[in-house]
């Protein structure tokens, strides 16, 4: 695996599409480190940003993101043809469900769930939420899939007014895939464990390297420290214990 210098095909406030020469393909839930100054014209921001692969392949790899700071603001303003360094695919990714599954996505967390949904496993339910309608990234894409889809927004601008986890009714023995704000994932894990369902979550820690050398992305679990970039980002939520995170 090598760091590739990709070119921006399409860029907008929440979506980035890159041509990534040599991208070998990836599993749902894997991520890439996106570097915003590959030719070192800019030495700042210095660190690449971890982003879940939304969908696509070498000819057009898509990312969905929320602007929360300088790095994502720069991403949102990238010019067509601009160079971006891409290291990936990284992390373990999601294991495909072996039975019925419910996907619970909130905010930018939605990005890592799309390809699971696109596989349309039997008995699939998809629950997406955000503060407002605009925060539900990739909504149109999910609607196109024609899967069982339910929505929630804090302000009621779309679907149920309230938390997306209000819509979650785990089925015994199913797999719940939750990705989004910490509180949302914790709630999903609670409900899943009460219903004796499996629960997989994808964590979003600050990262420097993404491939296991900086030791910066640790999460504390009952079994000790785990590295989100190499042991994760996907973890069995029941085993996490929700210890200290970045």
């Amino acid at each position: 695996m090598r760091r590739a210098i990709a070119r921006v095909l399409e860029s907008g406030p929440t979506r980035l599409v890159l041509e990534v020469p040599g991208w070998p393909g990836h599993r749902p839930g894997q991520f890439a480190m996106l570097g915003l100054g590959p030719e070192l014209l800019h030495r700042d921001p210095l660190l690449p940003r971890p982003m879940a692969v939304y969908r696509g392949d070498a000819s057009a790899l898509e990312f969905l993101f929320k602007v929360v700071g300088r790095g994502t603001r720069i991403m949102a303003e990238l010019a067509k043809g601009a160079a971006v360094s891409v290291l990936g695919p990284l992390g373990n990714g999601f294991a495909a469900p072996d039975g019925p599954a419910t996907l619970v996505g909130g905010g930018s967390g939605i990005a890592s769930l799309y390809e699971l949904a696109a596989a349309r496993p039997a008995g699939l339910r998809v629950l997406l939420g955000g503060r407002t309608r605009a925060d539900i990234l990739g909504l149109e894409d999910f609607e196109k899939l024609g899967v069982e889809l339910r929505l929630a927004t804090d302000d009621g601008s779309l679907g149920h007014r309230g938390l997306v986890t209000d819509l979650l009714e785990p089925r015994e023995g199913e797999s719940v895939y939750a990705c989004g704000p910490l509180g949302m994932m914790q709630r999903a894990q609670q409900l899943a464990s009460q219903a004796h369902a499996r629960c997989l979550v994808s964590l979003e820690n600050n990262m420097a390297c993404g491939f296991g050398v900086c030791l910066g992305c640790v999460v504390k679990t009952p079994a000790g420290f785990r590295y989100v970039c190499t042991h994760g980002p996907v973890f069995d939520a029941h085993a996490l214990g929700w210890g200290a995170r970045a």
Partner: protein
Amino acid sequence: MSADVDLRAELCGVELRNPVLLASGTCGYGSELSPFIAIEELGGIVAKSLTLEPRAGNLPPRITETPAGMLNAISLENIGVEAFIRDKLPALPPSLVVVSSVFETELDRYAEVCKRLDGVARVAALELNASCPHVKAGGIEFGQDPRVLAQLVRACRQATRKPLLVKLSPNVTSIAEMARVCEGEGADGLSLINAVQGLMVDVHRRRTSLRNGLGGLSGPAILPIALRMVFQASRAVKIPICGIGGIATGEDAVAFLLCGASAVQVGTLTYTNPAAGLEVRDGLAAYCRSHRVARVRDLVGALEAWPPG
């Protein structure tokens, strides 16, 4: 790829394929990089600092970004010297030069780790990490007090016959004084600099960005500080120096060599690009070609004086 230029270097008796190593704590135990690069093409690696027993390190957040740099408080998490020798060393390419970094919280334990590594043929040299800005244990760093530093070097010098490098803390009034202390106690060389002590604040949460509060500043931001200290240390002592701090390009490496470093280590930049070390080597070769420098070692200390104004 750069057969034309003689890139070979020497660091306190150790022959290096080229003068570009990877810095301790930024290349793990080496194997982490093998998916990305042919690690044996590097001048060498300095493995993550080892302690007698495994250490777990600080609670997160452990890292945060700074202007042209980053701040970390990993607190020297490592698998311990035994596991390194047993599990990690054998997995590394035989032709790779491996330097072991040693860290502890007490003098005698430092010496014990050195003694343990002294018998390990695969280890080419030892680097004493006298300078962890973010380890609370003991408060002040070993490398911040000339007397304590002298004791440390003496104890470890007696514990090993391997080439002994001392990695100095930049958080001192006079780096030249610390350099002389190490030379006086028989160190074979110096590595500088380690991360500069810093602190960042998350103004939204009104907390320090790192749970540990203080952390070590690294990356391009500290390049001018590192160059200054190598410049000052190389004029204070005769033992060779390995330059470290913010190296991102071949020209950055050239700057360190001109200031008197015999070799360099690339640290933080490996996080942004696993091939950073090799690209620095290539940039160094390209510089030599375009400036008609036949042997990289001819650059060491070759800074010229300004003409009188």
